[in-house]
């Protein structure tokens, strides 16, 4: 039983270590380019101190963004970058289409393309951005739509777009039903700035499992979305994009890549853009996993200490029961070392048998215990987050709806809050591969023999005090 517990703790610990390594190599390997909010705020403060009108300044505020050509150029460094993603969110009008004004899954007033944007929409123009009827969320690869990543978006019919799908879009099921649209059909949307009509082809219809999903979001590639920018913002095809992520070939080189970008593109810092390694996904996941690891370590120590105490007591009682036998052996010429060695040998034989038995049953036991630890830790993590954020799933920010008072909250194009994402990621990534490997079994044997050695100390001291005459005279 003890050996089973030790093996379970060892297995959980190795599973945690493996998961952390995996998480580092996957979740920790993203470099992002985003607005440096500290610089932006510093500039605002300086302007206010210089006497500029606060309200006017807020209207003129420009969200620092990176041009698509620079993003593509950085992404072309194949020695570092495995893949990349960026987004462009724009509004469009429609004369002929109805919008899902009050989303059946959303509280009233949260539909439509409007919503919070402290920078005046995604546009970099200093003019106030115009709100349209629908939002077109452009992303260079459909796989990086957050809803696709967290599997809350599922294509019901048709297919996703790709980077070559000119004017191809996917629309929500609610939006399609409301406008009698089918895969292969077309919709015409107008550029809110130029009034120019663009005909878009419906490639697929998606459904979102998220309760707060905005049904008026139309997904397309960035080239298609860019057609709805103003002339200035389109900038002859070198428009600005946001949420720029570079996924590393090797996560270990992420910091090196950041340095390289900063050296090669000093204008990024000048434009208040920050290049950083994104560890948010890793941190969100690592917290729970680390607590599982710490708990497993605690269990390992408790079990080891308990095992030493219990085995010490068992050996002490056993030696006491057999002290007559020890006396006989000593009278026959056995040394005390012989006696201790015999006890140790017996323990090793019994222990080895137990360790082998634990190895046979331990994997199953470790799996059950590991999952139980994981579940309890996840539960406490949820409770902790609920205390910190409020009800799980509550929308606390986001560009397409929510409270307009949290400018630092990362944008979620599909309207989901950061918290929802974090929960979604945790649920997805915290899957421990709790299987005992050769190293785990070796560690079990090492830990077991260590327990035996420690448990032998006290009884050995007793044996060293033995006097055969005392024992055989029945005085000991």
């Amino acid at each position, binding site marked *: 039983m003890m050996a089973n517990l030790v093996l379970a703790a060892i297995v959980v610990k190795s599973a945690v270590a493996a998961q952390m390594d995996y998480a580092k190599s996957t979740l920790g390997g993203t470099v992002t380019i985003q607005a440096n909010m500290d610089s932006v705020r510093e500039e605002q403060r300086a302007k206010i101190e210089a006497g500029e009108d606060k309200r006017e300044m807020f209207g003129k505020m420009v969200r620092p963004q990176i041009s698509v050509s620079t993003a593509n150029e950085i992404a072309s460094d194949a020695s570092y970058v495995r893949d990349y993603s960026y987004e462009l969110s724009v509004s469009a009008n429609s004369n002929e289409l109805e919008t899902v004004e009050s989303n059946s899954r959303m509280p009233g007033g949260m539909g439509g393309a409007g919503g919070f944007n402290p920078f005046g929409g995604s546009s970099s123009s200093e003019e106030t951005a115009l709100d349209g009827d629908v939002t077109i969320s452009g992303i260079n690869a459909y796989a990086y739509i957050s809803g696709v990543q967290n599997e809350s978006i599922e294509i019901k019919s048709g297919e996703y777009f790709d980077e070559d799908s000119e004017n191809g879009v996917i629309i929500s099921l609610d939006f399609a039903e409301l406008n009698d649209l089918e895969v292969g059909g077309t919709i015409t949307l107008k550029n809110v700035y130029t009034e120019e009509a663009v005909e878009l082809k419906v490639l697929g219809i998606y459904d979102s499992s998220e309760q707060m999903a905005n049904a008026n979001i139309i997904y397309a590639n960035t080239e298609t979305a860019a057609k709805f920018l103003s002339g200035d913002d389109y900038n002859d095809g070198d428009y600005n994009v946001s949420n720029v992520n570079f996924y590393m070939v090797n996560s270990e080189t992420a910091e090196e890549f950041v340095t390289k970008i900063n050296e090669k593109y000093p204008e990024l810092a000048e434009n208040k853009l920050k290049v950083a390694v994104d560890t948010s996904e890793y941190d969100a996941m690592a917290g729970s996993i680390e607590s599982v690891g710490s708990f497993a370590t605690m269990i390992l120590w408790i079990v080891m200490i308990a095992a030493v105490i219990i085995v010490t007591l068992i050996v002490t009682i056993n030696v006491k029961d057999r002290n*007559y*036998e020890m*006396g*006989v*052996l*000593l*009278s*026959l*010429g*056995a*040394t005390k070392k012989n006696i201790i060695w015999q006890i140790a040998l017996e323990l090793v034989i019994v222990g080895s048998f137990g360790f082998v038995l634990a190895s046979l049953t331990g994997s199953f036991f470790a799996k059950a215990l590991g999952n139980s630890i994981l579940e309890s830790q996840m539960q406490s993590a949820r409770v902790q987050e609920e205390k910190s954020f409020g009800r799980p799933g509550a929308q606390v920010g986001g560009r397409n709806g929510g409270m307009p008072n949290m400018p630092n909250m990362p944008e979620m194009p599909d309207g989901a809050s950061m918290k929802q994402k974090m929960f979604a990621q945790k649920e997805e990534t915290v899957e421990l591969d709790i299987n005992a490997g050769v190293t785990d079994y070796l560690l079990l044997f090492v830990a077991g023999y260590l327990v035996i050695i420690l448990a032998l100390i006290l009884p050995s001291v007793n044996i060293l005090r033995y*006097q*055969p*005459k005392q024992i*055989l*005279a029945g005085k000991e």
Partner: protein
Amino acid sequence: MKKQKVEAKRENVLMLEDLTYSYENESGEQEILKGVSAKFEAGKMYAIVGRSGSGKTTLLSLIAALDELQGGDIRYNEKSLRKIGATEFRLKYVNVVFQQYNLIKYMTARENVEIAIDFDGRKADANKYLKMVGLSEEEGGRLIGKLSGGQQQRVAIARALASNSSIIVADEPTGNLDEDTEKTVIDLFRECAHEENKIVIIVMHSKRVAEHADVVLRLKRGELNVA
């Protein structure tokens, strides 16, 4: 070669030299042995007699190296016990047969004898020694608890023989036995001394049994004298 032959001819002799032993209790210091000296030769059975509390068992414990020497020395073939060391002395030179037999209960008679052979590092058949004390192979395969008192004492003697020790000391070996078995056991000890050329020292109460010994020594008031 010549030297080896001389050594082989030399008689094994155990010498007690001015042994003293005392301990403290509520009444103060009790002097048990007051300069005991004696010589024991191979091929003879010695009986040490004396009243209860005369120090017979203490003397036996010292001879068997079960207790630490306080004063004086014990020499075997002129080698001091202090130099040989108690453990080695017990392993190579002396074996004890106790009144309570001191056999390991969860083992068979044969296994009890085999322990002594194993410690000595020899390869010998335990059955040979069991046969010498009149126990059959079938009896040798029995657990100690399944043997009578006399049989258990025989096993203890077989173990002493199997240990290949030159000195066998026995503490009241017939104390728990009936008269017939007592005689058989004493005869066994005599055979050990006379046929196996060992020094056999038996501590006992019974004068009747002591009469079978070659030499009878009396321990009185801490002194050992020929009776």
